[in-house]
Every structure is written in C-alpha cells, then in structure tokens.
C-alpha cells in the first residue's frame, strides 16, 4: 500500500474551512485536508458529519444550496478556487459525482455520458475514444447505452454517474457515497473499478463514504470527520489498525463484540492550525 504521502505532490489543499448554510447553520467548523496526486483519499464519518458539505465546498456546488464558505481557503494546484463557477472547476479537472447518482433520467445512458464531455474542447475523436474507455471500465453501461437512465438499476446509475465524470477527463474526482443503497457485491465491484481507474488513468479521488470498512481497504489515506471537524487522519492501513477506529467505525474491539450500550461516541479532537 503506497503510504509515502508526504513526498507526493499535493493537488488539493483545504485549509480550515468553515461552511454556513442559510447564513445560520454552521456545518463545517474548520476542516483541513489534502489530496495528493494519484491517491485515493477517503473522507469518513457518520450521517451529518460534513462529508458531503466538504466535497460541495470544493466543487463549488454549495452555492446553489445557499451554503457559503465563510473561513479558510481551498487551493487547487496552488491556486485558490473559491467562488469559482463549478464549470470552471470542471475545466480545471475537478469534478464531483454527487451522492445519490443524479443521472439525467430522461436521457439515455450514452447521452448521460456525453454530457460529461460538455466542457471539453478537444474534438469529437478524443471524446469518442474516452467513451470507449468508459465502456471498457463499465461493460454493463455499453449494454444499456440506449436505455433511459431513469429506468436502469441503482448500480448501473452509479456506474453511469462515475462514467459521466470520467468523460470530462478529470484529474481529481470527488466521489460522494458510491456505496449508497447498493448490494455489498456491487459496492466491491465499483470500488474495484475506482481503484483501477486510479491506477491506470492516474485520476486522484477524494471519496466520501460511510462504509468505513470498504473505503479503508481501497483508499491510501483517510480522514475521519465528526460533527464538522476532522478528528483523526492517517494512512488507511494505520487507521484500520487503530483501536478507536476499530471500535467506533468498524464495529470490532479487542474484547470482542461489544454491546451498543457501551459504545461511546468518539470525541478526541484534532486541532488544525490552532
């Protein structure tokens, strides 16, 4: 497992950001993280921990939901990317795959994939090549290419959403909860594809996931979020062995299975740039 994160070039750096929805609801209370080039970075935590908000803050989709980054900075390749159009970020190579797939339900699978190439200017031939590449990763999509996306299964829609993002020739994909509502086998399959895309195409991933177990097996590095703060981070292999993570997120402990009654919530807090 490649763990030499410190020597790698950092693509994305999020420094101590605070996010407020509707001018009143404070959701992120100082989150910092970095995504190295060529890595899979996992963002873990339960419901409402702030994973999705973090991703949307980066991709600038917060704006249309009345959310706002009020503190901190988001740097991509040494350049501040706050207050940019989401389209501009896509052109820079950062694209988000949203939680719950969000395929265009009345468009066919192939048309869905083609919308991913909307911002590209490198010609039809290159786009066609990438379409074939996506079909190679997801042969299932090729079979369903003419079906309206709304009528495909949850797994196929997830593949379609990831494939659509790939069509933009991204450098970094912000992947939000790919396992949502899918059978374990399918989750395994999709994570496997993510890993091979990462290895073969050199696409970096920032992955928000509740399924800590799967995420830590495929990721290189992990951050654990709790109520809007990063409480722990480390190489995935270390996190997997960490007794606290084991107890709180993987449901295992040294004393064997515990009754849920005895499980405390995890409160150790890591201070960033304090």
């Amino acid at each position, binding site marked *: 497992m490649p763990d030499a994160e410190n020597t790698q070039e950092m693509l994305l750096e999020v420094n101590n950001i605070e996010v407020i929805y509707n001018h009143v609801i404070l959701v992120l209370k100082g989150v910092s993280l970095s995504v190295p080039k060529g890595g899979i970075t996992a963002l873990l935590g339960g419901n409402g921990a702030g994973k999705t908000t973090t991703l949307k803050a980066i*991709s600038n*989709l917060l704006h*249309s939901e*009345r959310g706002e980054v009020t503190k901190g900075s988001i740097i991509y390749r040494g350049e501040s990317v706050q207050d940019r*159009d*989401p*389209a501009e*970020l*896509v*052109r820079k190579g950062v*694209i*988000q*795959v*949203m939680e719950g797939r*969000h*395929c*265009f*339900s*009345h*468009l066919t699978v192939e*048309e*869905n994939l*083609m*919308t*991913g*190439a*909307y*911002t590209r200017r490198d010609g039809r031939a290159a786009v066609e090549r990438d379409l074939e590449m996506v079909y190679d990763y997801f042969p299932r999509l090729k079979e369903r290419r003419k079906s*309206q996306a*709304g*009528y495909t299964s*949850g797994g196929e829609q997830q593949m379609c959403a990831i494939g*659509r*993002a790939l069509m*933009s020739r991204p450098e970094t994909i912000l992947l939000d909860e790919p396992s949502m509502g899918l059978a374990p086998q399918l989750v395994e399959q999709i994570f496997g594809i993510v890993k091979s895309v990462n290895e073969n195409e050199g696409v970096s991933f920032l992955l928000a996931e509740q399924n800590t177990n799967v995420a830590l097996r495929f990721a290189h590095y992990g951050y654990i979020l709790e109520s809007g703060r990063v409480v722990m981070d480390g190489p995935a292999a270390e996190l997997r062995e960490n007794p606290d993570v084991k107890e709180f997120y993987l449901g295992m402990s040294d004393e064997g299975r515990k009754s849920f009654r005895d499980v405390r919530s995890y409160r150790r807090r890591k201070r960033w740039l304090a």
Partner: protein
Amino acid sequence: MLNDIFVAPFVDMFAAPDFLMQVLWEGLVSGILYALIALGFVLIYRSSRIFNFAQGIMVVFAALTLVGLHAMGVPAWICILLTLGVMFVLAVVVERVVLRPLVGQPDIILFMATIGITLFLIGLGEIIFGGENKVMITAELGIPTGSVLLEPFGGLLILEQKDITAVIVAALLVVGLLIFLNKTRMGRAIRALGDDHQAALSVGISLQTIWVLVWFIAGIIALVTGIAWGARAGVSFALEVIAYKALPVLMLGGLESITGAIVGGLMIGMLEKLFEIYWGQPLLGGNTETWFAFVLALIVLLFRPQGLFGERIIERV
C-alpha cells in the same frame, strides 16, 4: 337535435370533401403556429421550470420591431437580422436582470417575474413603436401573396401562398429544433438541465449560457410566429392573445413534451376549426374558436392530468 349533432355534420363533410379539406388546411395553418408558440414555452419550462408568461408578448415585440425598423427605412432582410439581434439582447438582459438574481426562488416568484417582463415589453413596445396597428411587411420579405387553386374531388381548394410559406418555415424550424436538441452538445445540455439542475452544474453545464440560449430560441420562434400571424391579421398588441391559445395546447400536450407541443398544437388548430364550421356556426351561433380549445383541454385534464404526452415521471422506489 341529435341528428344535428351526430349525423348532419358528418354528412356535410362527406358531401363536400373539398370544403372539409379547406377547413382542415385553415386549421393546420393556425395549429402549426400554436405549436410553435407552445414549443417556446416547453423549451423554457424544461430548462428552468419557469412558466414563461411573456412568450405571447415576445411575439408581438418581435413583429413590432421588425415592422418598426422597416418603417425607419431599413431594408427588409436586414430588419430580420436586426430583430434577431434585438431578441438576443432581450435574452441576455432577461437572464442578467431577472433570472440570475432570482435563482433558487420558488417557481411562483419566477412566474410573477415573467408577468413583469410582459408588462415591461408592452410599455417598451408602445414607447418605441407606438400603439397603433401596423401591417406586416409581407411582400418586402419576399413572402408570396398569391394563392394556389387545387381541385380535389372536382371541388375547389384555395391555399394562400403566405400560409404555405408559414407552414413550411414553421415545419423547418421544428425539425431544426428537434435535431438541435437531440444531436448537439448544447441541445443535450438543455435537456440535461431540465432533468437535474444540480447534476447539470456538477458536469460543468453553465446555467447562464443555457438560459440565454433558450430565451433566444424562444425569441426566434416568437419572430417567426409574429411574421406568420402578422401576415394574416396585422401587427398589434392583440396578437398577444394567440399566445394564450398555446395554454390549452400545453395542457393537452404536457408542459415538458416537445412532441406534445407539436401534436397538441396541430390537433387544437384543426379541431377548433372543424368544430366551428360544422357544429359551432349551425348550432351555437359561431365564434366557438375563442373557447373551444380551453374546454377541450379541460376535458383532457380530467382524464390525464399530465396531458396527453406529458413526460412520464420516472420514479424508482
């Protein structure tokens, strides 16, 4: 009485098939114009969930601009280009001044905003071009004004050449639009935006560009409709009411369906003419065209609330 309703009209139809064809032709001409206006509504509705009340006044405004510019001595073909330019500027201004600040507001507020646009355009049109009726510059645009005489079934069928032109141009516009929506990158983006705003944003589709584009297309449609209708009835603010004929078309065809807008428009156009000639005039004293479409739409809505062709709502459970 029953005979008058159920038998006599059909007997008449078969007795004089040439006259029936004449009636259907007249219906087709107005129907295709209803369909065009409805298309303008559908495009804007699909890409922004805005019910564009201003579509009707855009028809008037486009026709007024065209005629007004010509009155200032500009050659007819340049008038067309300039009017297209004006419609483009209108689209940009609407997006900047009205839509962009209202992003994310409830639909009803955006709907109210389009009523505001309507009133603004009425005022602007009157200030610049005056409120009196004008004559469409049919001949100057090179639209033939003669008529074609056909003799089907030994009878007589009169087709006005300007109507034929209108039908051909409208049909070309519709076909072009369908190709644009289904085969091009921008067209796909318009349809994608209609399905899922957030996802469209996430793949880098810019709302602003698409909105300007659909309002501009609606403007082009308005201009074509304005010329065609203006050639038949003159250019005045009363033209606006034909846009309201598009409402029953939309109810019939569904707000989201392009096919629905076309088929609905043609259906309403022809049915209202048939009804007027064979039932309205002999039985109800005529002038049924003003209300027939609305009653028909009401009856359809009772049985199919999403319209005849409303896009099936895909919902997975």
